[in-house]
């Protein structure tokens, strides 16, 4: 297996509605990653597109629609998607294009335009449920996460106040992010707890907003990385795993599929004690409790311990284990696949020391990003490290 470096990253503004089309957003994110790496379209061997359910954009098989904006015309191109897991799975696919030796340089573009869908992107989520057993109950996707959050809170005796701290931290962290949709320097726990209840125990400020946006990353074979940088960032490990679709047949209090994905990535990176060896984390935080749930799934703390670390400030940007220094999905926005921008692009920027106001102190050497998708069943994990 070839060693794989990251040599460029880019992302667009994240907003509920952006004027640009999906192709145009893909172009803008890709152009920024090209500026970063110094590459032109002809230098790119292959392209991976990540974009989640077609129903948001309203364009069936939208991967084909997005090709022209993704520097992919005339090249090998593939779209990958596993719902919310895509933002980390697409870069995993980009990595394996290069790790396998099939490509020397692979561009990964992630795009999402949720604002196209009316009356609300939630309407598109109606089409992801099992048609036989679930749809007659006319479920809303927020129900699902409310049920998982309740199970997690009840098993461990976690208070909503402690979960609300995640929203506060991430929306405050997002203040330093130029693309952020919901940054708020003054938000408090009370604001979160007093925001309207959507589906108890989920309040409005526990949820990341639907967004339009795009992000891009460029992967390169280690053998040629010296042409682009003398301070390379490498992919240290990748992992992914999926659980059964029958989500009513397992205990939702712990995401075991995330733990399976994390173990695969840690083994590849030769990490034996993740809590000690990993400097910072960008776990998937579409809902406030998910950051905690995923920190446990990533084996960065014991089951039920993540709220305690959060309360004690360990996960703050200047804490011992900074978590979501980007501002996460809660602060920067949630254009599903394009959250690669706050997850994997952020690891790259933090490790290069160019995250500006978001930069975590010290000298971070290794970071982990994770995403979560499909019907509460997909875990995707990537580790980046400095060379």
């Amino acid at each position, binding site marked *: 297996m070839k060693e794989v470096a990251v040599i460029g*990253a880019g992302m667009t503004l994240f907003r509920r509605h952006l*004027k640009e089309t999906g192709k145009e957003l893909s172009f803008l994110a890709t152009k920024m990653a090209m*500026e970063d790496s*110094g590459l032109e379209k002809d230098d790119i061997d292959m392209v991976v597109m990540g974009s989640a359910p077609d129903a948001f954009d309203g364009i069936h098989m939208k991967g084909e629609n997005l090709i022209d904006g993704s520097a992919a015309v005339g090249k090998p191109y593939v779209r990958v998607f596993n719902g919310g897991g895509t933002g980390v799975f697409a870069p995993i696919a980009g990595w394996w294009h290069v790790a396998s030796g099939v490509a020397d340089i692979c561009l990964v573009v992630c795009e999402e335009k949720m604002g196209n869908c009316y009356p609300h992107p*939630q309407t598109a989520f109606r089409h992801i449920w099992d048609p036989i*057993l679930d749809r007659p109950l006319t479920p809303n996707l927020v129900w699902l996460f409310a049920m*998982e959050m*309740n199970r997690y809170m009840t098993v461990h005796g976690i208070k909503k106040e402690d979960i609300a701290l995640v929203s506060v931290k991430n929306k405050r962290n997002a203040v330093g992010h130029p693309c952020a949709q919901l940054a708020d320097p003054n938000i408090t726990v009370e604001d979160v707890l007093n925001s309207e*209840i959507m589906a108890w125990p989920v309040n409005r400020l526990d949820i990341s907003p639907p967004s339009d946006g795009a992000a891009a990353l460029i992967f390169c074979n280690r053998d040629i990385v010296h042409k682009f940088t003398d301070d390379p960032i490498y992919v240290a490990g990748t992992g992914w795993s999926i659980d059964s679709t029958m989500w*009513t047949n397992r205990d939702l209090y712990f995401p075991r599929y995330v733990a399976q994905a994390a173990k695969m990535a840690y083994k590849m990176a030769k990490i034996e004690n993740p809590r000690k060896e990993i400097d910072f984390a960008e776990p998937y935080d579409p809902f406030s409790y998910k950051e905690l749930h995923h920190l446990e799934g990533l084996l960065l703390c014991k089951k039920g311990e993540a709220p305690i670390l959060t309360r004690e400030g360990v996960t703050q940007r200047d804490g011992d284990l900074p978590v979501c220094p980007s501002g996460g999905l809660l602060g920067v926005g949630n254009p599903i696949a394009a959250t690669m921008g706050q997850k994997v692009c952020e690891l790259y920027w933090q490790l290069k020391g160019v995250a500006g106001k978001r930069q975590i102190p010290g000298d971070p050497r290794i970071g982990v990003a994770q995403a979560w998708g499909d019907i509460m069943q997909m875990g995707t994990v990537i580790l980046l490290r400095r060379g």
Partner: protein
Amino acid sequence: MVKKKEYKEWPPYAPGTHVHESDISEKKITFTWWEPEVQYSWSLGPAMSKFLMGLKEGKIYGIHCKRCKRIIVPPRMFCEYCFGPTEEWVELPDTGIIETFSISYLDPDARRIEEPILVGVVDLDGTPPHHGFMTYFGEMTKDEIKIGMRVKAVWKPENEREGSITDIKYFKPLKGGED
């Protein structure tokens, strides 16, 4: 080394043009609109046919995976864990405990509703822990509902049942002494 633009902070700018919801509703920007019309018919397959026809008769059927030694509900023709075929249908009691729940103020289109819906997962008696299906809960208030509460199915009248998960209207609290 390849020549490139240098910036001190990343991302160095945020490309894209924000438009407000009102820009669309007041037609201040150009856009196009489409309302798809499409219908589907899904055949249920053997396992779900048996399960849903059972509900029509007021019965909850599970199926046995002998290799994993578990009764599976909702039933399927194969076990996703050992990947062997399932066999032997089992009639299950219509009682269980609340595995988890939500008190929802959102309808399926994320529109707000006044009276919350109590919805969750019932962990059915006669199955291994955490085995059940999504359902509504009723005859209890949002302050009374608790994880671990014992519950029993309330069925639609026989002539209104149609072989759907909604043939069970909801699960209600099961008081001591009831079965």
